[in-house]
């Protein structure tokens, strides 16, 4: 019953949009729910995955961003959200690469790497709307009926969750891995059919328009995904890479936007202020900068930190991470000016920032500036005498 309401509501929503393109397969065309038990089983498996992912704890810890995303989804779905009968909600996953996926019951998974690579709300909306469309169109279920997909061995999010757990705890929880072969995840990670991806792209544009957002911003959003293909080559967690060629999808989107602009009813949407967006996603910017630094993506880390510092200019941690991004990119120098300056910036906003003193000391030691190194190490030990590495720092001091 819930689904019948949802179908009717979405059908009405999509029909009401003047921009609706004829070739978009709208929900109103679904006249009955086939294989109800199959679909119910699919939901259960997906739900089990989501619960396990949430229980990982450190992997998901951005309730404010989830709320922000929910409000964005509500705006795109407009009044019809009340009639949908199913809430669209979000789970934010701390992972540096760019990925998003739709659970078949309306929860959207989205990684911090993707959130921070977007430059404004409209760009994020393009991705979110695409995933909402997969849910509205029941693409997972539809493709489940395609027997070709059923034998695919998944290496998707179970893999990712397990990897994250291993990273965090040093131990592996096979329970997280156990559902790696879940069919729905195979679809989400190996990509839906080309046709369904195009449907979701085009329907995504309509949802953006519904929220009054500029559809042109879908292009840079998808370009960011395309750039991600260069990142982490060979990494099986790189989910977007196996969707239809992003370049082709971008071309299709450009054509679609051009067509819309020729319509008399076309209304150009808003390009929201990036600063509002950066403020909303601030916690992801910091978290993802750390992840990028760990993965050696120093330029990306600095990009995220620059966005963060636009809205939180006196945050010492952001300046410290900026220094780390510079230092780790060129740990042996010869130029230490940028990292040194950023450590000092961090200390300007928090003179008791122990790690900033320590790293400053390490940087001076690397340059054989022993007097400065000694002062910085002594300050570190005064602030963090019981730190796990305090003995090592004392050892350095003896050699200066």
């Amino acid at each position: 019953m819930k689904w019948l309401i949802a179908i009717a509501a979405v059908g009405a929503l999509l029909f009401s949009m003047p921009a609706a393109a004829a070739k978009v397969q709208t929900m109103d065309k679904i006249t009955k729910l086939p294989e109800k038990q199959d679909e119910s089983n699919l939901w259960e498996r997906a739900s089990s995955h989501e619960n396990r992912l949430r229980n990982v704890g450190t992997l998901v810890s951005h309730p404010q961003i989830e709320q922000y995303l929910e409000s964005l989804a509500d705006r795109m779905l407009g009044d019809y959200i009340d009639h949908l009968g199913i809430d669209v909600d979000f789970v934010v996953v701390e992972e540096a690469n760019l990925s998003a996926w739709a659970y078949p019951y309306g929860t959207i998974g989205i990684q911090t790497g993707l959130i921070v690579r977007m430059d404004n709300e409209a760009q994020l909306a393009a991705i979110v709307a695409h995933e909402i469309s997969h849910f509205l169109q029941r693409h997972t279920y539809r493709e489940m009926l395609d027997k070709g997909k059923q034998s695919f061995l998944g290496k998707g999010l179970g893999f990712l969750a397990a990897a994250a757990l291993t990273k965090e705890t040093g131990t592996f929880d096979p329970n997280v891995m156990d559902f790696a072969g879940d069919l729905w995840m195979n679809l989400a990670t190996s990509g839906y059919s080309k046709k369904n991806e195009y449907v979701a792209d085009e329907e995504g544009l309509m949802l953006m328009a519904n929220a009054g957002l500029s559809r042109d911003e879908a292009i840079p959003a998808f370009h960011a995904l395309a750039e991600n293909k260069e990142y982490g080559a060979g990494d099986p967690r790189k989910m977007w890479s196996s969707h239809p060629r992003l370049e082709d999808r971008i071309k299709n989107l450009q054509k679609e936007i051009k067509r819309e602009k020729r319509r008399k009813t076309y209304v150009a949407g808003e390009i929201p202020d990036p600063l509002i967006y950066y403020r909303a996603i601030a916690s992801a910017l910091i978290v993802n900068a750390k992840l990028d630094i760990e993965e050696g993506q120093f330029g990306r880390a600095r990009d995220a930190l620059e966005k963060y510092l636009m809205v939180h200019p006196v945050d010492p941690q952001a300046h410290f991470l900026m220094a780390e991004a510079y230092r780790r990119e060129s740990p042996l120098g010869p130029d230490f000016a940028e990292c040194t300056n950023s450590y000092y910036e961090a200390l300007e906003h928090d003179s008791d920032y122990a790690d900033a003193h320590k790293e400053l000391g390490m940087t001076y030691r690397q340059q054989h500036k022993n007097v400065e190194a000694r002062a910085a190490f002594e300050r570190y030990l005064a602030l963090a005498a019981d730190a796990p590495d305090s003995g090592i720092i004392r050892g350095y001091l003896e050699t200066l």
Partner: protein
Amino acid sequence: MKILPAALIAFCLAIAPAAIAADKDSPYYIDKRTFKKQYKVIALAPIDADAALQMPDTVARMIEEEITARLQKRGYTVLPSSVLADIRANMEKQVGGFIDSETGQTDVEKVRAVRRHAFRELWFRHKMDAVSTMRVQITQADVESDRGEWDGVKQSLEREGRRLNYTAKVAASTVSFAIYDQTDKPLYIAYGGLEMLMKRVGDGFEQIDPSLYFVDEKRIRKAAQLTVKEI
């Protein structure tokens, strides 16, 4: 016919995150000629192994010998793993050991601190171009009718019971050898299959007694050689 139990799938896949490899066709993450031109002095980190394998020290020595010999033959200067091991040992003393005197447990934070500082100290003291890590780890072998194949080697699976036609993924050990630059960026990652860790009993698999691992010196040395054959 598939006879792999679900628990074993989990076991086999568990090691996969650690085994994310470079392009299957080439172990190099950068152009091979650039690598040979830019990186001349390579420091070895002490060999590490998955705890479940209970690897003896003699195996670590064999693997390091094989890898060092190949690198030197190819014109590289090699800093032995004892250099980093000495730095680590000294730092372990400086932090007062890894065992928390109150809890009797390993202080993971101290272990991490020593590991981090030791690598930085290695770079500070020695003008090498790259650092390498070696690890013996659990991976998965493709098995077809008791014949396993993975990371450049083949091995017959021990079996109890009648012959079966099947395909499965079964736990095996492999040696990994990776070279990183000063920013921890991988330059080269390669694997050499070592041995199967399970046997087939009827229509299921059982772990081989760990005391029977690492008994074939030839396999150990071959696994190490495979990791550096592209050097």
